[in-house]
């Protein structure tokens, strides 16, 4: 099992039933040929993140996204500050 699958499984357990967890993992690991999931995977989308997010509430998804954006913003600002030796 890949690390991403373990991470996804742990989160999915919070709010998806076992059938949904298993079906979701199957779909993202082996997307049906010709499906939008297959196209997205081919495009470079990390499908494990989508399944993780679906296990969250909309509020939790927004909190997570804004926290990630804040972290990126902080990193960018840190990169612009002069280095002190």
């Amino acid at each position, binding site marked *: 099992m890949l690390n991403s699958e373990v991470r996804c499984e742990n989160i999915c357990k919070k709010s998806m039933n076992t059938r*949904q967890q298993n079906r979701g993992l199957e779909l993202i690991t082996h997307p049906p040929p010709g499906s939008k999931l297959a196209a997205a995977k081919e495009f470079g989308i*990390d499908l494990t993140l*989508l399944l993780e997010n*679906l296990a969250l509430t909309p509020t939790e998804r927004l909190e997570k996204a804004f926290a990630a*954006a804040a972290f*990126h913003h902080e990193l960018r600002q840190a990169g612009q500050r002069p280095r002190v030796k």
Partner: protein
Amino acid sequence: MISFQKALVALRNAGVEFVLIGGAAMVAHGSALATQDLDICYERSHENIRRLVSALAPFHPRLRGAPADIPFRFDSDTLERGLNFTLATDLGDLDLFGEVAGLGAYKVVRAASDIVQVYGTDCPILSLDALIRAKQAAGRPRDLAAIPELEALRELKRKLGNKQS
């Protein structure tokens, strides 16, 4: 960085008619995008614009990316003379849209939205189908690049029978 909860509470408390669109709407549906701003489509009646101004004025909206010497007053007259505004506020960046590409004005956008519980309140959020239509219509590379993820989300939700937005 937008304080989404404060912005949402301010808009809801003032009774503003709006729909959450753009990156935050994508995220609310499950996108893995990291978004920094808030895009809303607002209803353009005189009364709603008055409510919008009263909701946001305490957070000192100013034009984002415009020279500081360009005069800008955030009031009803200004909003009624314009349509779309890209603003910086004390809460973060906030974009106001009178229309959405591929959809139209508020009435159509509202009809194409889902009511989703966010921070304990009902919030109209542009549906996945409508987000995809809007991205197709906008047609910029960054919009088109978002479509595969949105289509994958829609398919995943359908296949999982996901009732939660």
